[in-house]
């Protein structure tokens, strides 16, 4: 990407079927930056996230992308939405990331196979590539979905609640992996979470969504009062 900002939202309102959930959203995301969208369940984080991805159209306002073309997104959805009836192996799930670049009727190339192996290796899941996706643990599934997103050769990696519903050790490993990918591949990362403790201190931008309002700042400005408040309410605020 040539420009400093890879995504810019101007006077954007988001919602479903004309019903606005969040209004007057204005911010830009820096190329190569790490942004976290944070807020309680049901506040509209995922709706805003899907609007940025182009899955939902904004009700008002405009979203512009860095080079004015739709960037290549690496999208990591909430793993719970994926139906386990599909008999995919871990490797087959990662292959889906390459489907945007492969033409119909063309067989899978060796180059794509090698690339998928590389992505599996990057997330530490190469040994489990022949296991059924449905048989993996929550943390392992999340790694496979990150590998699938990497297989798209993304300019921007977007992760929707990547650590929700996994144990504390898996949470730490996933966050370490995301941080490593950010540094190693210099990827622009946007992560959605409602887990206040999962937010790294060194992130570039924090977008706090609460009570239909969007507040933008750095992690210290926004999180310090929230953490203090949470401590006084014995950790009940965000769960």
């Amino acid at each position, binding site marked *: 990407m040539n420009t400093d900002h890879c995504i810019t939202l101007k006077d954007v309102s988001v919602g479903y079927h004309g019903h606005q959930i969040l209004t007057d959203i204005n911010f830009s995301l820096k190329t190569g930056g790490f942004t976290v969208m944070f807020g309680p369940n049901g506040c509209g984080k995922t709706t805003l996230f*899907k609007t940025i991805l182009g899955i939902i159209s904004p009700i008002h306002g405009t979203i512009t992308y860095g080079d004015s073309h739709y960037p290549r997104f690496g999208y990591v959805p909430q793993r719970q939405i*994926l139906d386990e009836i*599909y008999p995919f192996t871990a490797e*087959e799930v990662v292959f889906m990331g390459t*489907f945007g670049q492969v033409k119909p009727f063309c067989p899978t190339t060796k180059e794509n196979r090698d690339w998928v192996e590389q992505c599996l290796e990057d997330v530490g899941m190469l040994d489990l590539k022949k296991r059924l996706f449905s048989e993996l643990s929550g943390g392992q599934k999340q790694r496979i979905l990150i590998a699938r997103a990497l297989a798209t050769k993304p300019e921007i990696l977007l992760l929707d609640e990547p650590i929700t519903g996994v144990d504390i050790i898996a949470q730490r490993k996933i966050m370490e992996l995301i941080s490593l990918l950010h540094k190693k591949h210099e990827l622009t990362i946007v992560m959605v979470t409602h887990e206040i403790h999962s937010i790294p201190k060194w992130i570039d931008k924090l977008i706090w969504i609460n009570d239909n309002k969007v507040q933008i700042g750095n992690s210290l400005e926004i999180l310090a009062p929230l953490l203090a408040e949470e401590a006084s309410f014995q950790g009940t605020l965000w769960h």
Partner: protein
Amino acid sequence: MEQLLEILSPHFLLKNSLYAGLIVGFVCPQVGIFFVLRRMVLLGIALPQVSNAGITFAFLLHTIGLHFLPHMESEKFMALTGSVFFTLVAIFILAILERRRKGFNENRIGFTYSIAGAASILFVSWNPYGQTEVLSLLKGEIVSVPDIYLWLMLAIYGTIFICLVGFHRSFVVVSYDADMATTIGKKVIFWDVLLYLIIGVVISFGVMTVGPLVIFGFLLIPAITARMITRGILPFCIISSIIGVVSAFLGFYLSYRYDLPTGPTDVVLLSAILLLSFLGKMALSWKK
């Protein structure tokens, strides 16, 4: 053995029926895997019934004199048109209602099945001349398949199979994760519409040729069986079609050998394979 050699002979009188069954057994499971994976099994029951209602309605129109082609040609083509029209209208209405989340899917499909079944019977009962032919279709007696029908079937099902294989990646990713598919540039609505069109054509043409019971059986049972015994999407697709073809051939042989109606024999055989696979899987898991 004698009958088996007779069936395999190129001069076998009912060879077209055997070939039609094999084509259905090979292609229908490839469509059926999307019914199973998208959890649309109930739709797989209702749509053949809707198609059947279309056929009976067309026969009724033909009998009362509403036909535009010479008598013999017009009858079958009107039936095919009725089948395709009813099925496509039903599948698109159901798809739109599902997308707009109006009411419960099971209720809509249950209603569709009931009304289509009732309409089929009423159309037949109002038709004083076509009852025998329609009833044999309902029972799945794949006896007389004219040459032109076999070639048409081969062309249509062959094209559909090529589409399913060539566009496999798009159909799979759109079915599994529509949001992700959007982010990699897939037009979800386009692929959904194409898949529904394929489903509609396979069902309507198949019901016209071999009847609703056989189509339902070959759409769903091979895919359900293969889902149980395979790991990975490619083995799942291949095994589904193998089960379909083997059942179609054995079903035809048994029906010829013991003078049974072919359609129900095929479906019973498919069900037996499903049951044996389930028991085999259970036995293996106990051993472990």
